[in-house]
């Protein structure tokens, strides 16, 4: 009886902690969404929880009509999507090699890989931009994709996940005559879905949120990406209004697809590696 009561108390405590933390986490975002329905003046009127005088989608309307928001949106989705697909392939492949093979120079190559993530991007910004200019990639989609197709952090991540896959599965595939690439594609990939999902989300986000690089290489209101567009809105002060409300609307729309993506992919986290391994 007592033990069961203790257990129940634990479950309640668990819920209290998790839910209050979750509410705290969403509060600033709720504030952002809530504010997107207010006028700029209302956003800064105390107390902050006062409702707007009139609930309206005016900020959203203005956002879509006076700014090139749809272009920014489309650009961001395309870049983030394409980069993610390449990253998934190249990183899982290389992560596989580092996790499951012994080869000459592995430690050395691995140190280079780790080391590469330690180069502060701001350090190479100008040299890299000069390079882009030399190969005529300024304001060219390639500059937004090709350099970012195989990030070291992704390889490192995949290596960590693939290490957990039992090596015996590979051995038996080899006995069946599978090529190394086929082992990768048919044995490894299905088993590291949670890892791939994580990587997909992170890569998409990284690209979705990147600011300095697109700011440098892209030019023109119709080719820039969302973060640069929002920064443009921020530095733009028209005679009528600094568009805080519209920016909050923009921020809301920026967050929605990634939340949806996350919800869609979340189930892959649940299908555990071990289940896969048993089935495999």
């Amino acid at each position, binding site marked *: 009886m007592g033990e069961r009561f203790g257990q129940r108390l634990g479950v309640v405590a668990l819920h209290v902690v998790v839910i209050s933390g979750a509410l705290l986490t969403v509060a600033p975002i709720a504030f952002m969404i809530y504010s997107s329905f207010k006028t700029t*003046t209302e956003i800064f009127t105390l107390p902050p929880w006062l409702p707007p005088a009139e609930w309206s989608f005016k900020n959203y309307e203005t956002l879509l009509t006076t700014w090139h928001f749809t272009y920014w949106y489309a650009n961001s989705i395309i870049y983030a999507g394409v980069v993610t697909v*390449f990253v998934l392939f190249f990183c899982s492949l290389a992560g596989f090699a580092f996790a499951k093979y012994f080869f000459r120079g592995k430690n050395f190559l691995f140190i280079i890989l780790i080391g590469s993530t330690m180069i502060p991007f701001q350090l190479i910004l100008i040299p890299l931009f000069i390079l882009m200019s030399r190969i005529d990639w300024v304001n060219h989609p390639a500059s937004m994709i090709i350099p970012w197709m195989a990030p070291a952090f992704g390889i490192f991540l995949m290596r960590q996940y693939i290490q957990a896959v039992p090596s015996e599965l590979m051995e038996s595939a080899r006995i069946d005559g599978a090529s190394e690439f086929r082992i990768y594609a048919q044995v490894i990939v299905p088993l590291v879905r949670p890892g791939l999902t994580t990587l997909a989300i992170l890569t998409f986000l990284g690209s979705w949120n990147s600011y300095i690089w697109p700011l440098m290489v892209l030019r023109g209101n119709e080719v820039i990406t969302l973060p640069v567009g929002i920064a*443009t809105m*921020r530095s733009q002060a028209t005679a009528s209004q600094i568009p805080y409300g519209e920016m909050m609307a923009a921020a809301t729309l920026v967050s929605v697809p990634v939340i949806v993506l996350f919800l869609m992919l979340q189930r892959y986290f649940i299908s555990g590696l071990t289940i896969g391994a048993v089935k495999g």
Partner: protein
Amino acid sequence: MRRLLTIATLLFVGSLLLAALPAAAQDASEVTLTMWTHDGLYVQFFNARALEWQERYPDINFTFEFEVVPSVFDKVLGNLAAGEEIPDLLGIEQGSFPRFMQGGIIESKFLDLTDLLADDYDLIVEGRHTPYKYQGRVYGVDSSLCAVVYYYQPSIFEDRGLSVPTTWDEYLETGAALAEEGIAMSYITDHGGMFMMYLLQRGGAIFDDHGEFVLPDEENRTIAIEVLNLLREGLDSGAIRYVPSAEVWGPAIMNAYREGNLVGAIMPDWYSDYILKPQAEDMAEQFRIGRMPVWDDGTGHKTSVWGGTGFAVAKENENAQFAWELLQYTYVTLENQIKRYEEIAYYPTMAAAFHDDRIVGLSDPFYAGQKTGEIFAEIVDDVPIWYQSLFRRTFELQMAAELALFFDGAVTADEAIDNIVQYMEDEIAFAE
């Protein structure tokens, strides 16, 4: 996986093809003029003028691409380093002008406007040329006089039977009285440019006309310490409020106005339409413009100066001539200087405009119909001149840090000046 890859490849190749499409062949009668700036009001004003200006060339079909670009100077300097194209017109904010002085970039990449301005050179006040001078030549045409006035809410004074202070002593006295109710007269922040504004009014200087660092000179040092102590006194009594730079242009200030615990701000002409009006629409008619308080001993100036954006023309661009002509039309004609004040309240830089009926007679509904031009007309003859230097930005950035420490009470005025002088001397020595 394989299907995903195919889709990715298709998308990728497709995007490359799209990007590689050759730009439409340039017709001789097709001209595109580009401009980058950080302030949307300039875009608005240039767009309006460009439509009028293009009538001069009925045979040419102009396209105007004027844009607000975030981190615009980082982007332009990056482009210059890479040999990429830069816009035909660039609005260089005076605080960033030193970045273009480095290595003589301004001279090698932008048009020397000194001779192009010709007779108009003398029509513009000298103090608006000096921020854009490099080795004695002018490279930018400023967007406003940037003379400093006091934006305030008269009702706060009237309700208490107080009058608007005209000297700093009165200012501190009135402020101390209001502070007891938790109301501040104005606010300051940790910004080197704002410090220079107060310093210039007192007759001090940071750099001389050769760009030499003259703050350590006896006279300037004394003035700097006096100015800091004045601010100190205001901070201690609560007459002046310290606002961190992160909050200084935004809604926190507007809220303080709204709640009536902040009277106003000592700020340049651009404060009106760039900062105040767009955020305080609901407080229309509550504000007035008055003069900046003067020093009681009669030294110094009636006003001060802070800010400015000088438009420069990219020398190597094909359309440099058109760009210059448009700039000349938009900024260097009396008519349009007046229009600029009427449309976006950026005060003229040509002396002939100061006393024009259309400037002094203009009544601004936001200030309850006040003829704001009259206030400016009283002070325009006494706007201090300051000089640009390669190290001015370095000064402003580090001074901001010293100011934050000083406002906080962590260092005294003497120590703050000693620290900044030491730092600047190290930086100047390092650059040699």
